């Protein structure tokens, strides 16, 4: 286990370097001179020339990459050209918001998705199964922004129970924070719950038809032990993989949901940065989300081993 961890962590660094090079290169493919976008409406040639110099836009690509890496190694991710805030500061502002939203959404997805998947697999062909499938279909096919706006209209505009949008730090007011986060977390969680439910169902169906489950039942174990202890544990591996990937996606920012609920997270940050050609911000955010993705995958691998002892050797 220890060796496995060391090996996996050692793999992280070169992967991150590759990702950062890839993103740096890809950004250059974005059409348009970033200085012209940043120069605003007036397009003053002197401002454009100044921005070229400030952002090293006239230097060759490897030199620009070296400038950026040099900064990163000194702990400086650069500064947003648009609003002059340090990228590190922006990330520190947005990361907790995105993290909270992602975790809440994931919690909602797990609480709905896995039990629904189990019920639907165990009661295959029954009304429960049918109901869970309809729910899943609905969850997968409902666009987030549409569901978000409908929820706002119902709970904020008509009923007035929840704030329409915005974000309050949990340290400031936990109640207000949860009130603001529940709708976006539900919108995101709902879609993931549907996917999780479908995967749990198919994994469970496969496991439930295997020999050892028949043996367990033949031994006279009660159904609850068979399903939750013997079957579910083996069905969990693909669900963990999927969960880690979904959580990774959530951490890279739920763009549309954040837009609709005006949650100041990573999604809004990176989309605005791309449109404004604010390269330092794009680069910094990608670095953080790529790291998060890789760490989550590592954790998923560790979790496999925890649920499946056969993988320990």
């Amino acid at each position, binding site marked *: 286990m220890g060796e496995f961890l060391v090996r996996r962590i050692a793999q992280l660094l070169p992967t991150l370097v590759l990702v950062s090079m890839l993103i740096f290169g890809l950004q250059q493919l*974005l*059409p*348009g*001179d970033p200085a*012209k*976008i*940043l*120069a*605003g*409406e*007036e*397009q*003053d*040639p*002197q*401002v454009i020339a*100044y*921005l070229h110099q*400030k952002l090293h836009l006239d230097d060759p690509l490897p030199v620009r990459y070296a400038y950026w890496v040099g900064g990163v190694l000194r702990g400086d991710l650069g500064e*947003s050209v*648009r*609003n*002059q*805030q340090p990228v590190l500061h*922006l990330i520190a*502002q947005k990361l907790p918001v995105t993290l909270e939203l992602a975790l809440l959404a994931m919690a909602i997805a797990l609480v709905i998705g896995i039990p629904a998947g189990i019920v639907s697999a165990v009661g295959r062909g029954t009304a429960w199964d049918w109901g869970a499938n309809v729910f899943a279909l609905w969850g997968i096919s409902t666009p987030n922004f549409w569901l978000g*706006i409908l929820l*706002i*209209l119902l709970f*904020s*505009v008509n009923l*007035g129970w929840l*704030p*329409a*949008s*915005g*974000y309050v730090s949990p340290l400031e007011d936990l109640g207000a924070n949860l009130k603001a986060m529940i709708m976006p977390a539900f919108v995101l969680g709902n879609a993931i719950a549907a996917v999780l439910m479908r995967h749990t169902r198919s994994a469970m169906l496969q496991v439930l038809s295997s020999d050892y489950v028949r043996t367990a039942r033949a031994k006279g174990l009660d159904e609850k032990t068979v399903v939750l202890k013997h079957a579910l544990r083996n069905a969990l591996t693909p669900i963990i993989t999927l969960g880690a990937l979904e959580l990774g996606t959530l951490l890279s920012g739920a763009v549309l949901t954040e*837009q*609709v*609920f*005006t949650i*100041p997270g990573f999604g*809004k*940050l990176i989309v*605005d940065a791309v*449109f404004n*050609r604010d390269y330092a911000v794009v680069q910094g955010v990608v670095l953080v989300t790529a790291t998060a993705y890789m760490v989550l995958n590592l954790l998923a691998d560790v979790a496999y081993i925890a649920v499946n002892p056969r993988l320990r050797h």
Partner: protein
Amino acid sequence: MPLRPSLRFLRPLLALALGVAALASQAQTLRIGLAEDPDVLDPTLARSFVGRVVFAGLCDKLFDIDEKLAIVPQLATGYQWSADNKSLTLKLRPGVTFHDGEKFDAAAVKFNIERHKTLAGSNRRGELAPVTGVDVIDPMTVRLNLAAPFSPLLAQLTDRAGMMVSPKAAQAAGDKFGAHPVCSGPFKFTERVAQDRIVLERNPNYWNKDAVHFDKVIYTPIPDATVRLANLRAGQLDFIERFAPSDMEKIQAEKKLKTSSITEIGYQGLTINVGKSDKAKATPLGRDPRVREALELSLDRAGLVQVVMDNEAIAGNQWVPPTNSWYAKNVPVPKRDIVRAKQLLKEAGVPNPSFTLLTPTTSDAQRIALVVQAMAREAGFDVKIQAAEFATSLNMADKGDFEAYVLAWSGRPDPDGNLYSFHVCNQPLNYAGYCVPEVDNLVKQSREVLDPAQRKKVFEQVAAKVLKDRPIIYLYHRKWLWAYTPKLQGVREIPDGLLRVSGLKFSTAP
């Protein structure tokens, strides 16, 4: 009604609640929904329209404009042009301090104008280009010296070029000033969380503090117009800017919100490549003014305004709207005339000209492209639409890689700001590549004439030429659509589309 004994314990709670409510009513907050997140809050470096909305609460200017676009005093109380019109002397308002307690005086004005002109990356340099130097005459009098007479100068000083920041704070912060701006406006900067909020609090030492009725102003960027409106309806915002024209009817029918609809100082138009690149010569549209005239005559502007903007715009054919005092009456908005359009195309020898209309992917611009395509088809045009993300489209326009381009301009109070950079040779916003020495001379002349009547005559000559050559076919002038809670009073409808927060208050009546 006496409370039941079992509920008596509620009494102190009730009293407490009332007390809290009373306190809350004393500390009033104005919550404003913006359509975008502003860029840097440094008047010298700022670039975005939406940033100017925040500046209207944060930074006072030497002059302001009123509902009729007249220039009115703000930090300067009066002005005097020299006999040769090559210097402008300003009298300053006494007793004004910046948010950090520093005094506003002639030296501060000198510092600010010089900062606008010299700070690396300044966006104000072009606006103040003719200013060669600033002399402090006495603590409350300052003189701006010009290379040549420059009639748009006063109007420049009503916008960011006239905004005054604290010299001490600006010197200390250098180019990081925008992260903690220190000005002299009715509200001072408290905090900013990018894409979430900008919080300002009351400036207790404001020179016109009787006009300030809020303790705090919070600007929240909410890019989606539907969501912005939902927040206003849910009572989480008190005011939103730029709601969707299609929502106007519903809001008015509901009668729960107040609205303002103000004709902008900018325009929406079709820029035509008449000389920016070789592409200009490749199409009959870029080559032949008759084809451009035919295109204009094929368009029904009223229909366009109805379909694209739900009638929340006014049809126009110039760089200023027909309601503007600088509108050149000698060139009125032409009526649609398909017969004449077809005849012009025939004369030009191209009965079915074809061109590609480049459009940004914003919904307004795409709708314009579709309507133009349909209308122009009736005269014989074959219009192909090419949609590109805004930055990409701007890049193409800049390289001359287009034939016609749907492009809007937010407008400046003085017509020069809508004209000079677009129609004078080689100016940065002259995407059409229009270059006619006669027009250059006229526009330059309009900058040197100070008398409004004379200046108007020059603009009429410019209009007669430029609107015949049609490097830009002006279509309409949008309206700034604002919605707000009915208890908000004192909303001033100024055509620059920037909400003035001083003077605003909540009505006390229920």
